[in-house]
């Protein structure tokens, strides 16, 4: 894409941001409101020497991007609603075999087929806990079209750096809404590539981590013996079905994220410095809150907004940092609310919405007025 201003939807920005980050493989199965990502990728990937495949379903889609990533390509898929539920088993495979992939999930009203065209935020916990087992993952969630583009570059960088699937959350509002966006020049951003083995084939164990707990990743076809198993494995990659191997492997794939959490955290703090009451809100819903915070300030209420951009690992130190009361405004019946409660000193109130629309500014303002001192 030529540098300059464009008028794009969140979906287009997610696709273009992926390509900008270096993604050259997309496998997916279209589903509203993420279909325009597939549509854009089908158009654009062939133009940049990449490959687009429309798969038979979501299970095949994620399996295909895991395979593509093992060939050394940056790969992504996008889905929504029932589609992300179908992907969860293989998300666990990507976690266990430490494969960098980016999975976009445009959240819609749910559960089940729910509200296909309307906004929801019900997949926060699923992004973290969707697959079976105890694992860490990275999840990011932008609130504007510009941030969608910018954050896709971070998503690929994190996936490559930490060898982990990144769940890139969008919502139906952001996926379909259009805004002005600036595409920078190709050389203006940092693109991180996965670590490659330094030892020759035969000497390198493919799951032997460096001090940062992240093993270098050879590509299929480079001569390394690659055995990528979802079974608990040793550093050779061979199944080793013992408590000791489990302890070592699972502890490491969790700790490689936990120990780098602060490098992964991105948070927006808006007028929080002197706030008595802080609203925690994510994605497009945080935009409503900004309006409400400004209105509340005019009425003498010391309100602020805390917006986790990194949803997982949860940026808990930002919650601990303030001694204010919290309102968690999310489009579900209480998910991030529980994380905030875990780390807040004072009162935490849930302001839920079941889905279909963002909170309205007056709804947030009404809640803030109860905290007027």
């Amino acid at each position, binding site marked *: 894409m030529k540098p300059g*201003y464009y008028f794009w939807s969140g979906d287009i920005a997610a696709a273009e941001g992926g390509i900008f980050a270096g993604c050259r493989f997309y496998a997916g199965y279209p589903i*509203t409101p993420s279909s325009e990502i597939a549509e854009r990728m089908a158009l654009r990937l062939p133009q940049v020497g990449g490959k687009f495949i429309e798969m038979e379903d979501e299970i095949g889609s994620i399996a295909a991007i895991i395979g593509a990533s093992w060939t050394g390509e940056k790969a992504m898929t996008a889905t929504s609603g029932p589609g992300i539920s179908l992907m969860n088993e293989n998300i666990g495979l990507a976690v266990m075999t430490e494969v960098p992939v980016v999975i976009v999930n445009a959240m819609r009203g749910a559960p089940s087929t729910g509200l296909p065209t309307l906004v929801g935020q019900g997949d926060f916990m699923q992004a973290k806990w969707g697959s079976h087992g105890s694992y860490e993952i990275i999840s990011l969630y932008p609130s504007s079209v510009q941030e969608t583009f910018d954050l896709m570059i971070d998503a690929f960088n994190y996936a490559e750096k930490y060898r982990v699937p990144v769940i890139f959350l969008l919502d139906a509002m952001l996926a379909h809404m*259009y*805004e002005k966006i600036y595409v920078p020049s190709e050389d203006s951003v940092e693109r991180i590539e996965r670590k490659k083995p330094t030892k020759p084939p035969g000497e390198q164990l493919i799951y032997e981590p460096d001090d940062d707990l992240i093993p270098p990743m050879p590509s299929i076809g480079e001569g390394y013996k690659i055995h990528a198993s979802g079974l608990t494995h040793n550093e050779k990659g061979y199944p080793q079905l013992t408590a000791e191997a489990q302890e070592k492997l699972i502890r490491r794939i969790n700790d490689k994220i936990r120990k780098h959490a602060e490098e992964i955290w991105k948070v927006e703090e808006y007028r929080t410095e002197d706030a008595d009451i802080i609203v925690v809100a994510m994605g497009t819903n945080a935009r409503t809150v900004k309006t409400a915070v400004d209105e509340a300030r005019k009425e003498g209420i010391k309100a602020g907004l805390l917006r986790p951009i990194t949803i997982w690992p949860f940026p808990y130190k930002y919650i601990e940092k303030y001694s204010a009361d919290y309102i968690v405004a999310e489009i579900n019946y209480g998910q991030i609310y529980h994380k905030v409660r875990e780390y807040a000193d004072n009162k935490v109130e849930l302001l839920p919405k079941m889905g279909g629309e963002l909170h*309205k500014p007056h709804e947030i303002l009404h809640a803030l007025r109860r905290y007027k001192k």
Partner: protein
Amino acid sequence: MRVEIKFGGLGGQGIITAGYITAKAAALHDGKESVFTQDYSAEARGGASTSEVVISDKMINYPQVLHADYLVVMSQSAYNDYLHKLKKGGVLIIEEDLVKLDERAKDFKIYKIPATRFAEEIGNPIVANIVMLGFFVAITGVVSKEAMWKSIEERIPKRFLEMNQKAFLKGYEYGMEIVKKEKK
């Protein structure tokens, strides 16, 4: 200044396109901020179509219409469904052959244009939305004439540009005459 515009009509009238063109004109050619959203659920309700545009000099927070400053309606059902979205004293722009006003209309400043009839005279009713955009520019000045036309040019296939230009200018001139009369 935050300005909210809502377009409403029937599927096929180019309501979504009108919103997209307007928002893009403001963002890319007038140097403002804008957000364009469309209501997908309304389409499923049997032919109704609506789109929303928010324009501002500053970053836009809430992305949808709360209390519209301008409501452009091209069907009776859109008038019935969305009039409550228009703030008191707001500007109501109607396709006068397709929308009949009722007593509720007295709260608003009303502008009428037979956009579809004009489009048919030009050669194809499909450009009624472009007639409407020309009219909208003349009446409201929310988006500049140059920006709106540039945005139309980028959206419409080249072979239809001539017809669309006629449509745009027809709506614009019709609107300017009304504006001039008002000033007198």
